[in-house]
């Protein structure tokens, strides 16, 4: 068996490329949203922020989900040395997802909402997405074949796949009045499901990254090492019990807060450690062969570190009181979804579509530096809002937002730089392979 051969598997690649397309679209909406922060009411007659935000967030969330699916489906074939169980199922899944996602984005344009944060589309769309996911599960399990003596990334993929479905269904419990009649009950279950759902796609992406690291270093024992399994089990514990930190300030059960407070951010520490150790083991030659993927994995390592720092601070309730409801939260979310999730998926994308050109290295550095400025701007804006929130006598909301506008301007400019850099990174992935070194 030679599992580490790069073959062309068209449909999984298509998932990744469609994801990349959604990322590009999402970036434009993000930039428009940022513009509405600094030019109040900018194009609000046509497309105001309640449309822009879901357009941005759904596009990028679907990038992450499609990218994760594409990575898992490519790698499970490389891992098992078998072709996908059913190309037809995959095609059906692909078209179900495409039609649903396009319809969702169009429905936002027309102001048709389900109105739940992150899944802002009409609940009817959840049906095809759920069905598509079940097809994905079938294809994955059948392609995998046996559960015996599997490396950690297979455990992660399985966990991510199953828990995503569970939490996705859970996030629709609000359709029953028993869960949604009281807003605190509703939000408790909503954020329980979201917290675990993010953990689920992280499992898919971390699994693919560990596979990729094993592939780059040529050292398969990474997937079996004790520390990898320690990471997996802490990840699973975090996924299942650490969702409460989203709702520290909700008047909900105290034990929910205690549990997530106790379950700390160990998951991130461990993945950081794995990538770090792995970097030490990769030989120069292999590094060179996979240089672009290697760079993105290393960048993700840096962002894991920063996100970890912020996350640990934010999960101390005494600090969360101040940062909750401010742009510090947005910094945390975007820092993690760009710096960790997107960069890891880009590492995978450059493995599946090996490309290199003279601009990539520069674009890579600009992306990271501008993301850092982007992230810091949001944190400072958040801290300023936090100070305002605690004042005995508050100026009006709109005055406070005017006062912190300079930070939003630097958020916008760095966001623009990030987009330009990402464009130079994404574009080659759509071109025919020609410059592989």
């Amino acid at each position, binding site marked *: 068996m030679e599992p580490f051969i790069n073959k062309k598997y068209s449909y999984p690649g298509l998932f990744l490329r469609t994801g990349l397309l959604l990322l590009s679209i999402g970036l434009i909406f993000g930039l428009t949203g940022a513009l509405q922060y600094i030019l109040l009411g900018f194009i609000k007659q046509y497309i105001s922020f309640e449309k822009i935000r879901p357009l941005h967030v759904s596009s990028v969330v679907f990038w992450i989900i499609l990218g994760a699916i594409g990575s898992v489906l490519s790698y499970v074939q490389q891992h098992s040395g078998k072709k996908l169980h059913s190309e037809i199922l995959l095609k059906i899944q692909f078209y179900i997802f495409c039609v649903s996602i396009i319809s969702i984005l169009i429905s936002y344009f027309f102001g048709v909402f389900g109105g739940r944060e992150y899944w802002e589309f009409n609940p009817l769309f959840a049906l095809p997405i759920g069905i598509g996911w079940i097809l994905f599960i079938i294809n994955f399990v059948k392609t995998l074949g046996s559960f015996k003596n599997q490396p950690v990334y297979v455990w992660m993929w399985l966990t991510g796949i199953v828990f995503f479905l569970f939490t996705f269904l859970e996030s629709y419990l609000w359709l029953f009045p028993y869960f949604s009649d009281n807003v605190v009950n509703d939000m408790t279950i909503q954020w329980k499901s979201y917290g675990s759902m993010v953990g689920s796609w992280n499992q898919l992406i971390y699994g693919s990254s560990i596979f990729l690291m094993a592939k780059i270093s040529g050292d398969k024992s990474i997937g079996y090492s004790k520390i990898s399994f320690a990471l997996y089990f802490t990840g699973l514990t975090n996924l*299942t019990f650490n969702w409460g930190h989203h709702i520290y300030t909700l008047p909900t059960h105290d034990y929910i807060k205690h549990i997530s407070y106790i379950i700390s951010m160990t998951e991130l520490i461990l993945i950081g450690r794995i990538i770090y150790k792995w970097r030490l083991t990769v030989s120069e030659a292999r590094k060179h062969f996979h240089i672009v993927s290697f760079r993105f994995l290393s960048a993700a390592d840096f962002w894991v570190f920063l996100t970890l720092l912020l996350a640990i601070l934010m999960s101390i309730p005494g600090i969360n009181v101040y940062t909750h409801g401010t742009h510090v939260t947005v910094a945390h979310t975007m820092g993690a979804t760009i710096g960790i999730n997107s960069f890891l998926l880009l590492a995978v994308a450059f493995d599946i579509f090996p490309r290199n050109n003279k601009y990539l290295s520069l674009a890579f550095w600009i992306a990271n530096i501008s993301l850092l400025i982007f992230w810091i701007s949001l944190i400072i804006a958040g801290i300023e809002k936090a100070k305002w929130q605690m004042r005995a006598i508050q100026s009006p909301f709109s005055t406070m937002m005017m006062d912190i506008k300079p930070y939003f301007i630097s958020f916008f400019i760095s966001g623009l730089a990030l987009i330009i850099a990402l464009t130079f990174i994404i574009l080659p992935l759509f071109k025919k392979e020609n410059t592989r070194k």
Partner: protein
Amino acid sequence: MFKIVNVITDNQKFTVASIIITLFLCYTFSLFSNLPQKNYDTSAMARKGKMVWQKYNCNACHQIYGLGGYLGPDLTNVTSIRNTKQLTAFIKSGTKSMPVLNLTDTEIECLIEFLKNVNSTGKSDPRTFQIQKNGTIHQ
């Protein structure tokens, strides 16, 4: 470092995973059967108002208990600082950032009923929170 080969057996892994998942399911279903707030009274109007809130996606710009989009203010307790007349005026005429969403009068009434209902469930102003010795927040 990575030379340690498969020191954990499949059985051990399955056992640990089963324990975590079982605990998770217990946690989940005990929470479902024992939701945090019990003695509440949500009128039919407030229920409709919640659907209006979702229909117009107010949450993309506003927060409830700090969760939502951040372009506009948190509205958890807005009914304790503004009366129905003021709220109606805001919703009808919008603001610089907030569009005129053309809600019907009934929708506005229901929406305000919903906001009053939200207000009755607790406070979201961080100035009113107490941080307890064990580190959690109490309101």
